[in-house]
């Protein structure tokens, strides 16, 4: 049962991340790209690691993966924020209404 749930979670994560990478090539403007990619990528990471945790069961391995997830959830939005802030401070133009 846990095998199946883990596989489904991993598959969902792959769909999320593929959407994120597609969005990076699809959108024409930088701020749209950074918004789409960072959100979708964080969700994909959480889902995929949840799949790994469900598959490996309750042990030391799961605890280590959990620590990685906590760090990633703390740091990845922050990294994206610093990129967007750097672009905004350098007067990168904001997008028009029609995208």
């Amino acid at each position, binding site marked *: 049962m846990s095998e199946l749930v883990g596989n489904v979670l991993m598959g969902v994560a792959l769909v999320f991340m593929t959407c994120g990478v597609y969005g990076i090539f699809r959108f024409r403007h930088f701020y749209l790209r950074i918004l789409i990619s960072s959100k979708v990528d964080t969700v994909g990471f959480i889902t995929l690691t949840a799949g790994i945790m469900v598959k490996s069961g309750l042990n030391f391995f799961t605890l280590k993966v959990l620590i990685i997830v906590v*760090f990633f959830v*703390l*740091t990845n939005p*922050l990294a994206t*924020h*610093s990129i967007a*802030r750097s672009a905004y401070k350098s007067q990168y133009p904001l997008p028009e209404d029609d995208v």
Partner: protein
Amino acid sequence: MPVTIVFLLAMVVLAVASIQVRKAEIAVIYLGIFSLFNAIFYLFYSAPDLSLAEAVIGSALATALFLVAIKGYTLRRTQIKSEYRSPKMRLALFGELFWGVVFLTIGFIVISFYFGTVQDVGKPAWYHYVRSFISDTGARNAVTAIYLNYRVFDTLFEALLLLVGILATAYFLEWPEGKEPEEEIATKPDSEIVARISGLLYPFILLYGFYIIVNGHLTPGGGFQGGAILASVFIIRYFAQRRLGINIFILQRLEKSFFLGIIALSMLLLLPEFMNSDFKVFHLVLMNILIGFKVCCGLAILFFCFIFQQTKVEDTKGRSERG
């Protein structure tokens, strides 16, 4: 694993792109990505220690040093160019080239004598190391066994090399004697969010660095990697809060005394009756801790010297534009 062929293609693309690109900052970003792939290669080919070092050094510390140096360089490029074009400088370069060729020739002659006398030792050397490193040294990680026991002499000279390089950098970049560096550099923090969250992260990064250092004889890692992690705490703190809060002279003194400690501890290996099995493990942990602190101090000094030089150049340029 067959997946590595995909990464290999990406690495070739990145290498070509980093040569082709015109702006140096973008080449540094390419090199950061290249080192990410490089580190995953070390991991796949069973060298996790190297992979850790590459991840820490390549994607964070080397990138930071490159970017600081490039920023300072572009600000004072004209001055440097005129220095390099002088005939005195050219003569000096030619002299260096001449002596280099002479010493290389002598070296080749010496090595060609050596090749005639190589003996056949029977079993390969790794056979001995891999079979007996646990009983010889008490380490579970064969890499630690080699660099802290079998080859401790090499490690001493590597540490000395790092120390000399850092002292030379600090000397040539002219840290002002007796001045309080903090007032020179402090400006207002960059981003409130980054400052707050990185304040939350320091203890965990420090703890993780200590874990890598102290567990170096059991799991991948060791003194150098852990020291680099500890040094990155200073760097991220500078970038988040824009202040140093540290005295570089105290750091230099600390680095030298840690190096003395490393030499004194490694001398204990010459007394085999003193090294019983319990003390061996303790000795490994102690050596790793000393090496880690030394590397941490050294990398922090290097980074702060670079940063100070760059901000000084920025200041003089701003003053000349204003006045």
